[in-house]
């Protein structure tokens, strides 16, 4: 019998070209990165079971479910509001996060789960010019007073649905954002983001993998 290898593959494996691109030589205006092999589960409360879902989430993740347009940071996962009565449970380290089976058990009868670990692709953008580059991509107002750390939005980029949230500022005190894009759109959106960042100088990190 032949050997069957099941190597995972990022949808960005061709698109991500690590290194410095675009204008300038000093501090890059924009930093871009992508982490593959994440864990992502869409949690949708059953009808009338929001309170039970909140209780189960608190027990499982150690945090309240996220308020509208917010993220909630738990011990092992980030919960991202994604619509009325639903959120995304995201972890970049699937091995230290609750497994899908553990989640099925915790939310049994109270929520429907949809595994989106392969359905979405994580892209991070930060840097002193990140907001300028993002202004070309999103109609969101990213001003501190409107979209502070912890803010989340279900929005669209280039007519494509995206879950978008603001993470803690980077080491240089510049804003940092994460977005989950549909896997099939990842390649095209990555190129769009790079193109939009070139004039500020962009540093692209090598593809990271979840652990």
């Amino acid at each position, binding site marked *: 019998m032949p050997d069957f290898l099941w*190597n995972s593959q990022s949808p960005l494996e061709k698109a991500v070209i690590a290194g410095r691109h675009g204008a300038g030589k000093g501090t890059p205006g924009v930093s871009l990165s992508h982490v593959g092999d994440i864990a992502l589960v*869409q949690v949708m409360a059953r009808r009338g079971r929001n309170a039970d879902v909140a209780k189960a989430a608190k027990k499982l993740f150690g945090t309240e479910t996220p308020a509208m347009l917010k993220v909630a940071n738990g011990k092992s996962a980030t919960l991202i509001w994604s619509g009325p009565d639903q959120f995304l449970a995201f972890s970049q380290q699937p091995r230290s996060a609750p497994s899908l089976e553990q989640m099925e058990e915790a939310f049994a009868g109270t929520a*429907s789960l949809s595994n*989106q*670990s392969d359905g979405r692709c994580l892209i991070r953008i930060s840097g002193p010019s990140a907001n300028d580059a993002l202004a070309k991509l999103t109609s969101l107002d990213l001003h501190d007073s*409107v979209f502070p750390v912890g803010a989340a939005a279900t929005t669209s980029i280039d007519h494509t649905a995206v879950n978008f949230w603001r993470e803690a500022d980077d080491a240089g005190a510049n804003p940092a954002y994460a977005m989950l894009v549909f*896997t099939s759109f990842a390649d095209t959106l990555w*190129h769009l983001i790079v193109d939009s960042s070139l004039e500020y100088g962009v540093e692209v990190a090598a593809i990271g993998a979840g652990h």
Partner: protein
Amino acid sequence: MEGSTRTVAGQSHRLGSGGQIDRNAPLNFTFDGKTMTGFAGDTLASALVANGVRLVGRSFKYHRPRGILTAGPEEPNALVELRTGARREANTRATTAELYDGLVAQSQNRWPSLRNDLMSVNSLFSPIFVAGFYYKTFMWPAKFWEALYEPAIRRAAGLGKTAGIADPDHYDKAWAHCDVLVVGGGATGLAAALAAGRAGARVIICDDDSRLGGRLLSDGGEIDGIDALDWLQGAIAELSSLPNVRIMTRTAVFGVYDGGDFGVLERVNDHLPQPPEHQVRQRLWRISAKRSIVGAGAIERPIVFPGNDRPAVMMASAVRTYVNRFAALPGKRIALFVNNDDGWSTVDAIRRAGAEVAAVIDPRGKAAVGDYSGVRVVQGVVSDVGGGVDGVSSVTVNGAGGIQKIEADCLAMSGGWNPNLALSCFHRGKPAWRDDIAAFVPANAPTGMTMAGAANGDLSLGACLRTGHAAGAMAAAEAGAKGKAGNAAKASDEAFAIKPLWHVQVKGKAFVDFQHDVTASDVQLAQREGFESVEHLKRYTTLGMATDQGKTSNVTGLAIMADAVGRSIADTGTTVYRPPYAPVAIGALAGHNRDENFHATRLTPSHHWAAERGAVFVDTGLWKRAQWFPLPGETDWLQSVTREVLAVRNGVGFCDVSTLGKVDVRGADAGTFLDRVYINAFASLAVGKARYGLMLREDGIVMDDGTTSRLAEDHYLMTTTTAKAGPVMQHLEFCRQVLWPELDVQLSSATDQWAQFSIAGPRTRDLLQALVDPSEDMSNEGFPFMGVRTVKLRGGMDARLFRISFSGEMAFEIAVPARYGGAMARNLMIAGEPFGVTPYGTEALGVMRIEKGHVAGPELNGTTTAGDLGLGKMASKKKDFIGRVLSQREALTAPDRQVVVGIRPLDKARRLRSGAHIIPKGGIPGPETDQGYVTSVCFSPTQNQWLGLGLVSHGAERHGEIVKAHDPLRNETYDVELCSPVFYDPEGVRQRA
């Protein structure tokens, strides 16, 4: 700065001192091939003025020689082709084009040269080129229009020529947000931005010019006791120091839309020969503002008199701009023709520059307030202008003392000021007339917009600063800013007295719209011919329809119409104002979305694998799908596709079908939900089984089809067609959220989560047995047709396996998480290698579904019912579902409906064409005999001929009938047989094997 006419070397009309140009930064440029020199800070227009150039273009209709009329974006005459090659830009206003070293500009609309233009012969025939000329002359015979008249007119008309090749530059689009948007960076806008910015509001201030200042740059004055230009520097410094204020120069606000959204164009790099690497030429902004203040100033209007279009007849405000800002003298002996006090201020500018004021001609006959001793004042009007193509030599004045001729080389005119109120009218606001300034002023601006300063009819500098400050403070407070706006800057309120004068009524060609060559007599003729409404006037004479959109002509034109009709100007009214206020390049509207970035693309999980194998891709919606996989030596797509079909029919093949929409439907009421969405039953579907489903729109027409599987009691997986995945998801969400919120149903798209492949052909089971764990029972009993379950694969992987067939062969679909899509394709090749496994594309998929008579997009085309598709029996009679009631409408159940039928040419060598119409044998093609059409065709390798599906009236009852296929596009008519749509394995034995 007591100026001097001492000229700069080579620049015959450049002042030796003064102005806001950098004499240490000379810039070379060419105009019509002649090399000249200007300075940094110049516009192309000011550099031409400094070089003594008067003639810059030819008019649109009569090819009359024209010069520079204004110094701003309202310029109707001085349009040039800027740059060369692919960057050549037609109809660029010399007054807004910033000079750069190496700039190349060409005049337009002349042949063979600007000085000797043969088409100026049109001017001799001008009595026939009157209003409505084209309408009147080229009416008959009608059939001549397309072949003869239009091409000839198009050759003669038009101004500049486009480059004709792709624009090499990049454009993009961006969003910005603020509390207060300030439109215009003159005194009013600066005062508004300072007030709002100090109060703490987020402010964006935009100005079309390369620098802030507006008329302050041209007219100077005194603000808060200091020179206006010094005050300006302070204001800019303060605004720049405020982190909540963003200054955008070279930026035009061209439209206001719903909810406080503004259309804005930033000319990021138009002032350079070409954009620096990685930068765009222009950027289209959508600015979302809670409040807006429009301090867009006013536009000085010409007076209509014979000769008013001669080169070197210029707006008085433009003369001041060229002299004060650019240190360029439009003339050395300048006459003034004004009807208002503001025009008189030009006297000072001319004198300080060391030039001579030939006379001030004012129908009011008296000097404005101020010291005008020594100025020759003539009470009267200008009735003619002498000179040639190179400008003015004299001015003829009809005055109290009779007719006199005054020598001058330039005539500066001012008929008053029109507030720049377009933005206030873009939501159908109608302006109001104010007699004291003889102009329209804004009356009902869009919600959240405040008009201020000259744009609101407050023409004095003091009033601009006061109203701008007040508007800024109020807007900031309304937007929630809590800080203090500070004090308004102060300046004097200079008098503005005016006596309206629109038209000097003497014989001779007197221009209203310079760019479209509309004269006062054209307006009067339009009135005599019954085109009295301003909207008719505009369309009949083309007044205001040129690239300048009548910025200098509209109000004057309707004033002349009002006079002709005997109505007041207020009663005559204005035409409807529509965006864009300023020209917007199509490239800017497209932004990044051109060429390969025209739209987003979606890639399947096996895309890169397919690309490595040399697949040819096809766009299906946003997706790139492998269309076929050519092998070395294959030269024709049909050769590759036929090989792929035969490989599947005789062995085994696989195809990436991840593009089909997949929707997880969960919850206690998932079955009930699907029963209402589909025409057939799903609540009764057993766990571990799949079923073909058909859904209708509310109107009874088929919406989509697909296979839906029950994975658990409360979990279904629906599949949709590739094309309808998005619309179906929207439809389901609408049903869930709006129609039946009481149901416990949760939906999520799983399309991108799974890499799914169809494996088909008689050797499918052999291939799968090599791939799945030996513990899995793959027998016909262990995995029956329409069965679904999760199986273990060798190498440690779980997969969902569905026994469904689209090709008519023994087939499965296998799904793994998308990250393993590439691995799955490679493993299918390994597992199937002994059986000659062949990857196939969408073409082979299409061939096999047509051979099998399965309907797809061409049949589910938004006009067909379930019955039309031969699927009427699927509709449950035991339940209600979306579309049930309306599907029973008389029209949708009529016996003569066009239904799906197979079609096969009698001549087996004949290629059947999609779109061909079906007519009865012996019928003459036409609407009366038309019975339907061919929807899908393929070359069938198993039947060894072209065949297809069609929608034909009474089709189901006519199998075996010979009819004609008529293809008017290819002018073909041939015999075809109507038959069963199932050409291949009609008993369905193979897929159940």
